[in-house]
């Protein structure tokens, strides 16, 4: 894939946001909030950072792998996968509908290219990514494994089992990212279950931790991922704390947990789309 400029990546991101909103709107279900908040991250990953093959082989040998642990933000992933050629963009119109490969939460039973494991029940993706990274080490495969988790998801105990394990086994070909939007379904993480200091927690578990202070600025996101990449191969797993805002890109959705799992109505959709230029053509 040709290297894209920040501007080109931003154009892709605008289209991805349109896809997310239109997908969620047409079935009146799905999770737009964190999907919009992670749009820069997914776009940077698939259009700039990862070495990956859209002809898709499950084994993923000699390519970078990505796992989505917080599976409910499937709209952003489906959009980016289709926009990078894994399956036809027109298939986005089947999201969450009967007989679709685009399940509400990502699944492999439907054999959707780009998806290697089901997710949705939280807390499991970090373990899976570590296993995939260890398989690469056994195979002498130098590519990296990426995983995205939610910040609310850090409340799951399995995450900490996995965090301990990754440091113990020196899984240093892994870049985990936490979408630090400080919101979860019932409200702000600070009120629901205070995460206090994730950096200190992971550092004390033996990880190298970086912050991407502006997770909704394309340049910062790319720089954050570059930095994370530069820290791999040094005996420690790498964590990227990605500071984002839920609902970013749509003025009435930004910065609140209200849009975690609800769909815009016709009027709201029109309002939102008016804020996001159609750059690659709607599906």
């Amino acid at each position, binding site marked *: 894939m040709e290297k894209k400029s920040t501007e080109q990546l931003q154009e892709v991101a605008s289209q991805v946001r349109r896809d997310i909103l239109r997908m969620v709107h047409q079935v009146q279900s799905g999770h737009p909030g964190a999907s919009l908040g992670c749009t820069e991250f997914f776009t940077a990953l698939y259009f700039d950072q990862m070495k990956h093959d859209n002809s898709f082989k499950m084994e993923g040998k000699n390519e970078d792998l990505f796992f989505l642990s917080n599976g409910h933000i499937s709209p952003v992933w489906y959009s980016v996968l289709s926009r990078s050629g894994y399956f036809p963009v027109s298939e986005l119109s089947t999201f969450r509908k009967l007989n679709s490969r685009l399940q509400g939460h990502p*699944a492999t039973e439907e054999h959707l290219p780009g998806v290697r494991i089901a997710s949705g029940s939280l807390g499991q993706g970090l*373990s899976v990514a*570590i296993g*995939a990274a260890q398989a690469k080490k056994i195979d002498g495969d130098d590519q990296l494994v990426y995983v995205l988790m939610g910040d609310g998801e850090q409340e799951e105990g*399995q995450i900490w089992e996995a965090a*301990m394990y990754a440091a113990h086994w020196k899984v240093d070909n892994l870049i985990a990212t936490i979408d630090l939007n400080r919101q979860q379904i019932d409200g702000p993480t600070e009120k629901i279950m205070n995460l206090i200091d994730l950096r200190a927690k992971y550092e004390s578990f033996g990880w190298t931790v970086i912050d991407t202070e502006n997770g909704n600025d394309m340049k910062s996101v790319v720089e954050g991922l570059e930095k994370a990449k530069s820290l791999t191969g040094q005996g420690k797993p790498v964590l990227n704390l990605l500071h984002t805002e839920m609902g970013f890109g749509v003025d009435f959705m930004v910065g609140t947990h209200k849009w975690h799992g609800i769909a815009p109505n016709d009027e709201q959709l029109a309002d939102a789309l008016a804020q996001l230029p159609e750059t690659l053509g709607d599906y």
Partner: protein
Amino acid sequence: MEKTLDLKFNYTDKKDTRSGFGDGLLEIGRKNPNVVGLCADLIGSLKMGAFQKEFPERFFQTGIAEANMMGIAAGLSISGKIPFTGTFANFSTGRVYDQIRQSIAYSEKNVKICASHAGLTLGEDGATHQILEDLGMMKMLPNMTVINPCDYNQTKAATMAIAEHEGPVYLRFGRPVWPIFTPADQKFEIGKAWKMIDGKDVTIFATGHLVWEAVIAEAMLREEGISAEVINIHTIKPLDEEAILESVAKTGCAVSAEEHQYNGGLGDSIAQTLIRNNPAPLEYVGVDDSFGESGTPTQLLEKYGLNADNIVKAAKKALARK
């Protein structure tokens, strides 16, 4: 008692089924470089030490963290590795049911969940560790194959066979030393019931340790002039319905015998098969909706009604209902 009986199968040696797993894993590990092992701080109990020693680069100690172990195994399988996870049966199932359900069964991952210390014969550790619900939980999962071999040799053969089978498998075995009465060179066919003893009056469908009790029960019944057929159901799922129906068409009644709750176990699977095809009397030998307790394996099998004497009683009850 068994010494005075004319048994159709005899044994010269006793060994634990978990050793069959450990030895099978080592042997298949030598043949298949994709086989990897994982264990949650029970390497000695699961007999995985020899594999770990010979293949340290293919073995992962996860510590006491079974949920993570299931996820790591799923991740390893993506590249084509064949992960064998090892821990006790209760930590292999109920503790990690959601991890198995989403990351392994629904995701169709080629993970072999190997579970020791299943059932009452775990013995003195008591009810916290004596899982009697695992077959039910695992057989309910779509895509999952469920296997419960009967002795050392069959467990070893099963361990090697599941490595060659594509898809998630739950392999259940146990702790106590137990008679070795099946051949060392047996071919293990997943999903294929093994008719061990021909009979005409009643069929005994047994799985796991209770296959040996069924062999004894057959001899006891024969002394009383009752001809029992003994079928070894090592694969609970997929169930060999054809073999079950063929046998019951001949005998007209049956007993199921398993180290598991009535609810959800082998008996229920057989009952479903019979009721849909050939409703015939079926008696359950198993645990009747209770937890276990501390004791020796023999004491526990007796107290909870899971030995040859109880199979004989159940067979007579089934016969009387014909």
